[in-house]
């Protein structure tokens, strides 16, 4: 039975950064992930990482841009922490070996990004997430004496100790089917987002809301769940085209050949924040000015960027265009549309990653809601979020570990989860498959809980989600084996997703205003008088959602009219 000071669930950027920091502080560390760490979805982050590294820039400017980007829903104390610590963190990554792009003088170079008042996005071509993730994994290999890696282990539940603290998790070795108790003094959830609740999504197949659901199950609050980011430039099949394309100067063109962003953001054009650009595109499409065969898209014109620069800085999307749409983006515009990309909400934490009512439990990265992104995340702030709050969680979790004794869950605790999985595997096949239910969930969420939302659509969606949540409990699977039984894990993931989807819809129903990514067609204005607050959702004893509220922390910046 493995026991560690600090257990980290998830091995993307937040998890790996937490592991390294906890190890540096002297803790014994386990990092556990349902995929090999370099397969984590952080690998897909393309554009870069924000920070006021240049001497001419200031963290206050970065923080203000982030507050404004969040539509004043972000907690300003947390935003200050993130932006203040950003430059040191980026330099730390450089020292570890990240191959950041340089200028002619050999210094790190930055590119423009949406919603930013300075060029402060540092990058490695358009594989920034991959470059950082692989470099951190190099460090995990280097420190393997202190950090035990459990690769391809699936967490089935978090352990709630009798005193109300979190004591680790139960997990299944995917390769052998063996189940284990992982005892830990501190447990850090770093299991990523929930994009698979939507279809299409830019998110990987592994982004199935696991950590949010597991924390919710033991009483954590989920906060800002209605805030779902639609990225403005997704290919028609859902794949992401980096914001770096617009950062390098690409234009958005509607079906009438008009560069329309000036109507919506007269100063920033294509480089307004993501919610603004996605809404602008959706409005053009809804009003019949879309491009492409069904007028369902918008053209992204990268040809205005010098070809050599495209090959140097945007090579990945040249390949994407070629491989997945048959378009040479250096020669012709490519059809795109807004697509689900990120969830600003998640497990509520403080600036040290602590989950308020659950001692010993931490969350960092997309699974968490600190909240630094509020109603809308700025591009290239997510990598920063994962690293800063991963680091802080790791440090705090290690410090806590020196003060508490090692919990020891009875091995019988495994049986609860083992029986549950065995029951799914051995059940008679009735009803719909996991894939069919998941498909309905994703498609309907993308219809009723997308860029523009209405009371009617959301009410309809709540019914659908609640029906699917029940149906998910008895979905059909085929695999009767133990080695790499991905089928049974898919079933568990579906239960996670339907549970979390319900909280998203409830949040969206409750917030009867338009703020950040929450755009209510029936309440088109921001309403600071009634809604300048976070919504939280917890599960009651029966697992039914209960709505709550939390105040927003303001430090320097009062809400003002937001225009780009």
């Amino acid at each position, binding site marked *: 039975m493995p026991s560690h000071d600090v257990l980290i669930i998830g091995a993307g950027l937040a998890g790996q950064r937490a592991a390294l920091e906890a190890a540096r502080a002297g803790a014994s560390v386990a990092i556990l992930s349902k*995929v*090999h760490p*370099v*397969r984590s*979805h952080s*690998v*897909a982050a393309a554009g870069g990482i924000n920070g006021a590294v240049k001497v001419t820039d200031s963290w206050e400017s970065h923080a203000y841009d982030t507050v404004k980007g969040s539509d004043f829903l972000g907690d300003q104390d947390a935003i200050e922490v993130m932006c203040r610590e950003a430059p040191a963190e980026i*330099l730390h990554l*450089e*020292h*570890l*070996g990240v*191959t*950041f*792009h*340089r*200028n002619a*003088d*050999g*210094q790190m170079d930055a590119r423009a990004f949406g919603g930013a008042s300075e060029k402060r996005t540092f990058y*490695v*071509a358009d*594989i920034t997430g*991959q*470059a950082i993730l*692989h470099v951190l994994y*190099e*460090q995990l*290999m*280097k420190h393997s004496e202190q950090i035990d890696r459990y*690769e391809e282990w699936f967490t089935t539940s978090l352990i709630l100790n009798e005193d109300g603290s979190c004591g680790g998790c139960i997990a299944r070795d995917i390769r052998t089917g063996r189940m284990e108790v992982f005892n830990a003094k501190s447990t850090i959830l770093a299991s990523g987002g929930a994009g698979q609740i939507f279809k299409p999504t830019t998110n*990987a*197949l*592994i982004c199935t809301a696991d950590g949010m659901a597991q924390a919710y199950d033991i009483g954590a609050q989920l906060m800002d769940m209605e805030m779902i980011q639609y990225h403005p430039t997704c290919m028609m099949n859902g*794949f992401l085209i980096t914001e770096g394309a617009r950062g390098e100067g690409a234009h958005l063109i509607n079906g009438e050949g008009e560069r329309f962003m000036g109507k919506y953001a007269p100063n920033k054009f294509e480089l307004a924040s993501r919610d603004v650009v996605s809404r602008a595109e959706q409005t053009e499409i809804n009003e019949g000015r879309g491009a492409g065969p069904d007028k369902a898209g918008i053209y992204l014109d990268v040809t205005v960027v*010098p070809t*050599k620069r495209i*090959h*140097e800085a945007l090579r*990945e999307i040249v*390949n*994407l265009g070629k*491989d*997945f*749409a*048959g378009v040479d983006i*250096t*020669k012709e515009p490519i059809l795109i549309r807004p697509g689900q990309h990120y969830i600003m909400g998640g497990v509520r934490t403080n600036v040290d990653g602590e989950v308020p009512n659950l001692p010993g439990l931490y969350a960092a990265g997309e699974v968490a809601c600190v909240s630094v992104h509020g109603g809308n995340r700025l591009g290239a702030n997510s990598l920063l979020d994962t690293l800063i709050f991963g680091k802080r969680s790791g440090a705090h979790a290690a410090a806590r570990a020196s003060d508490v004794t090692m919990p020891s869950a009875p091995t019988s605790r495994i049986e609860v989860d083992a029986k549950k999985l065995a029951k799914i595997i051995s059940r008679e096949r009735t009803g719909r*498959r996991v*894939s069919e239910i998941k498909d309905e969930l994703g498609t309907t969420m993308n219809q009723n809980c997308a860029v523009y939302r209405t009371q009617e659509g959301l009410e309809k969606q709540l019914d659908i989600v609640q029906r699917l949540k029940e149906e998910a409990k008895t979905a059909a*699977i*085929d*695999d009767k*084996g*133990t*080695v*790499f*039984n*991905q*089928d049974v894990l898919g079933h568990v993931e579906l239960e996670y997703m339907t549970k979390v989807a319900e909280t998203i819809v409830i949040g969206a129903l409750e917030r009867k205003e338009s703020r950040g990514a929450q755009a209510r067609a029936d309440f088109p204005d921001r309403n600071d008088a009634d809604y300048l607050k976070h919504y939280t959702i917890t599960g009651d004893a029966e697992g039914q959602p209960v709505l709550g509220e939390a105040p927003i922390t303001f430090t320097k910046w009062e809400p003002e009219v937001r225009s780009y």
Partner: protein
Amino acid sequence: MPEYTLRIRRYNPETGEAPYWDQYTVELEPHEAVLTGILAVKNRFDGSLGVRCSCRSAICGSCGMRINGQPGLACNTQVGDAIKKSKDGTNLIEIEPMGNMPVIKDLIVDMDAVHWKKVGRVTPWLLAKQPVPEREYIVPRESMVDVTQTMACIQCGSCVSDCLAMEADPEFIGPAALAKAYRFIGDPRDAQHQQRLDDLANDKHGLYTCTHCFKCIDACPKDVAPMSQIMRLRRLAGQDHHIEDVNNGERHEQAFVVLIKKYGILAEADVVPRSYGGNGITAGKLAPATMQQVVSSLPFMGKALLRGKMKVKDVLIPHRLEKSDLAEVRAIYDTVLGREKRLELNLYITGYDEDGEPTTELASDKEGATA
């Protein structure tokens, strides 16, 4: 929509049965990915089909496999392209797990047992120059763009799958791990270039085990071109760091260079003495190492003579090109060796000029760039 037949190699370790083939028919557009087809099978017909996949956009590196014999990612191989290699010329797509690694279940292989173990052999982290600067290391722009090509490796294993040298020598460090090694040796912030090159050149299964077959370049879905990185490591080791390796690798390469310059075509009988003894007219022939090698090769040479693969005359008098042809070969030498700096090809830097026409612009090697 056209129909495609997916013939998938199955293996279930729990039944004790040998691997077998399953066949499914799915409707797909030609531009759709093979992975889309596999997931259609998994979602509609058989949820027990084991396959690793996640991002669907060729960045996570999970879905390496062999598709109609070609190693690569299922997510960025279009079915329309895959059938061009179909065995019977129909819409048949044969899908197998990657090679050179043990199969765990269906399309899932044990990458830890092979690939990741090999990555571990190249000290896969930066050994940074000291002192660490307060701000960033100041390094040439091109050097970062250059190592970014190997940084772009997603560790999918496609190159490992079909590496012929690894098939012959399972201990070979292999294309992916050696490309990873270049990522540090090409990085001006790393302090241990000499030591790293020394280790790789003197490893019995290292730099010089590669047989230059191009399979890994063909397999790589990210244009990392592992073999090109291996060749660059050899040039760095032999020419710049003057490492005389115990494998005679550098001398063997130089023997080719000298002989072809001299005769315009390979003088096979001269390769062994020059590789083992020394790269001169007589020095190599008299060296004890050459004698040893010749003696141990006698049975092999005997067979070759008997079967007419080798002629005594050719051993004594090397073949030679026509004078005019030889002059052309030497002109190539003059051009390449006449350059002030050695030029290396790098895909990230080798760009296109402003009006979109491909050029043959070459990036200078990092060593030259830092000079």
